[in-house]
């Protein structure tokens, strides 16, 4: 695969420490397009070896608006189904530029390990020093060790290490869209984290026309209905959820977008610093990045203040546990005191319905959306590498246009028929 790809698939056996590399064949792309289409295919190929498959969409990391998504595909410990969770923020983009299109992780390591993926090199290193650290400390440790603060980290905390079905793979310091308990899979494999940094380049088959069309898509999105949405609270309201803007506003410091996503879907709140501060803070842990709407709404329903809710979610992120599950189980057990909720994390057990009943993480299941349409749109987002929430907000990025720009970027004839087949397979 010459264009929009690094042309490399890694197969890592944690048991033997063998790392094999394969080329990303054009035929595989013609048959499965990319993203979840290919991670599912790779999952099926290695299904007997309990694989975790990481990948990026065909357009991830490109100039197509919203092209921020990476995907992890594995069998969910929570639902027992092969499922897909999103890698948002800069993690998907970083994976794309790290020199690998897909990474299959199979087997179980005898001792804690981590993967260091950089510029087409994949190193499997011992993680004895990292095991036992919370998500934040582990992220700090690996960034300090490798000497770069831009390294993107997919890591687990105590929840994953101790085998909780509610364990989450976090992105850097923050909660991710992993509602499927994939953090538990990392823990079982003794895989503490995956650190990624890539400064590679993507070749585009028809670069001038591709860039021109991306500009057109951006203009269309910017004049669409989502153009004025800023931050997680506004987004919740836009999807018909409870309006929590007033509740959250006193803590709101800034809104942050995922890579190349024109709608900022995340909000950074200051908990131990003045939210109105307009210069670099000197406080070590000034606040928290809110990346997931559902747990925020659920904690508000429990009667928590915005600050208490954010403190709880911060504790969840450090512990590496799904905040939505924590909120749901707290509600079930009648816990409404934030300290009590935080204290319950080590012993919290499911099941929780926060995993949903679909193959895609319900992270982007906000508001009351028609299920089949939601599933199809999620499938499209996970195949092409679009931010799953942004994809819902930007109907301008329709299937025809995505196929057209993908063919332009790759020089491959990708058809609606193929897309339909791939969607049917991954949602089936």
């Amino acid at each position, binding site marked *: 695969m010459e264009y929009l790809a690094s042309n490399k698939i890694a197969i890592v056996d944690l048991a033997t420490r063998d790392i094999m590399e394969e080329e990303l064949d054009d035929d595989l792309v013609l048959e499965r397009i990319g993203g979840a289409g290919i991670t599912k295919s790779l999952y099926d190929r290695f299904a007997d070896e309990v694989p975790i498959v990481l990948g990026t969409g065909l357009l991830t990391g490109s100039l197509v608006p919203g092209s921020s998504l990476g995907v992890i595909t594995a069998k969910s410990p929570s639902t027992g189904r092969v499922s897909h969770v999103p890698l948002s923020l800069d993690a998907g983009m970083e994976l794309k530029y790290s020199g690998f299109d897909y990474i299959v992780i199979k087997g179980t390591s005898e001792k804690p390990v981590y993967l260091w993926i950089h*510029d*087409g*090199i994949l190193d499997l290193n011992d993680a004895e020093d990292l095991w036992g650290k919370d998500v934040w400390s582990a992220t700090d440790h690996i960034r*300090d060790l490798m*000497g*770069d603060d831009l390294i993107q980290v997919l890591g687990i905390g105590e929840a994953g290490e101790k085998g909780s079905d509610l364990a989450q793979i976090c992105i850097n310091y923050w909660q991710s869209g992993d509602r499927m308990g994939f953090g538990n899979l990392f823990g079982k494999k003794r895989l503490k984290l995956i650190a990624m940094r890539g400064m590679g380049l993507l070749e585009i088959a028809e670069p001038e026309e591709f860039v021109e069309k991306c500009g057109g898509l951006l203009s269309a999105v910017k004049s669409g209905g989502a153009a004025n949405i800023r931050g997680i609270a506004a987004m919740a309201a836009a999807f018909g959820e409870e309006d929590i803007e007033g509740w959250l506003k006193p803590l709101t410091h800034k809104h942050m977008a995922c890579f190349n996503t024109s709608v900022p879907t995340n909000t950074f709140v200051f908990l131990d610093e003045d939210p109105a501060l307009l210069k670099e803070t000197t406080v070590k842990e000034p606040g928290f990045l809110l990346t997931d709407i559902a747990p925020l709404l659920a904690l508000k329903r429990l009667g928590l203040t915005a600050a208490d809710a954010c403190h709880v979610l911060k504790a969840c992120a450090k512990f590496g546990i799904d905040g939505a599950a924590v909120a749901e189980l707290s509600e079930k057990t009648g816990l409404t005191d934030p300290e009590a909720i935080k204290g319950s994390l080590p012993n919290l057990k499911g099941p929780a319905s926060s995993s949903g009943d679909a193959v895609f993480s319900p992270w982007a299941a906000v508001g009351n959306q028609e299920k089949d349409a939601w599933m199809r749109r999620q499938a499209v987002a996970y195949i092409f590498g679009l931010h799953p929430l942004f994809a819902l907000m930007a109907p301008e990025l329709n299937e025809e246009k995505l196929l057209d720009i993908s063919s332009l970027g790759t020089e491959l004839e990708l058809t609606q028929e193929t897309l339909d087949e791939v969607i049917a397979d991954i949602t089936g």
Partner: protein
Amino acid sequence: MKENEPCNRSDDKGHPRIGIYTGRGTSHSWLWFAEVFDRIGFFDLAFLTETELRGDALDRCDVLAMSGGDTFAIAEGLGPEGADKVKRFITHGGVYIGSCAGAYLPLHSSKEHLNLFNFVPAKIGNLTRTLPEARGLREKFCTAYGCAYVFHPVREAVRLTTNGFAPFKKAPSLDAPLYGGPPLIAGGSAQVLATYSGFTEKTVFLVDRKLASDTLLGKAAVIRQKIGQGYLHLYGPHFEHPRFTVANQLMTDAMLYDLRLDPVQIHETIASEEIISGEACRNLLKDIKREISNARIVAVGLETLPVQWTIGNKVYETAKIREFIEPVWRRIKPLEKLNRMRLLPGQAGRLLQVASETTALLREVKRDLKSGIDTLYKAKDLFERLNRTSTLFLEIYFRTKRMGNSGIQELRD
């Protein structure tokens, strides 16, 4: 002077063996020479330290390229033995190409160490006892020169006018970047090949524009001096800067024009050389790539920190680190495609060792900077290791590129 003669020496004599000085006092700009020679297909390059230059390395060279850097440190590093070797090399028919610091070096001087290199009776045109007011980039504005100062009126691209004769007849005018190189006042039999004639949109003024004009315009930017059987070509601006292709062409034309008729033996085969290919080559390149990638990642992160170091008479910003790394990084992929490398025993091991030490040092510097610890000594060590890493890699790279169809049997696969 040989004016209006065709520049066809390359056709007559084949490719010259070019020594590039990479030792004490050089900046990253020696890598620009390597880049330009690589582009035009001159692969017979030798990267010479001060020790090698003081030895017999120049006996096997047709050309010596002396890059920019710290002139005083270069002169001190080479010492009397090095000065004698360089002079002997030129008088016996070698071509000396001096750029920036390499152009200052052979000018007449009474200063200690520099006075060993009084080869060319030209004067420095930017010498002053009273410093003018600096308008910008104060840290790069001047260098102490005994009781006086060498000051730099502008930086970046300036306009030059050539004399229109061979070896500079291909372009009547051109742009080339000035990074502290001299305006020259030619004397004796020196031939002026190009003069400073104007400024460009990219020119950055470090002093008042009128003073900059008075200091630079009309003065020699490039001179050519014959000594014995050989020539010195002294360039104030960096004609070897890879982004200035017209300048690159003229510099190469001049080099070929003055190349001696009886070149040194080139393409020598060393019995212990080995060629690796297939999996062995892939694995070695992966190991090299791992180390260079690790270093590159830290280097990019360092560029966000507001720090610079003064080492000797030169100011180093963090962005300079990648000037050493990128030329290596860019050449890994072509070697991967070739999947074959020619190298001397132990060469790969030394490269991997130094590259690994470089990465470790980069990470230490980053940690120290974040902790507010002074990093000057570590930075000095770092730039030496970066220099060594680039040199070791490029030695293997050009040795491999020289392989061509030399017919050497593969020793292992």
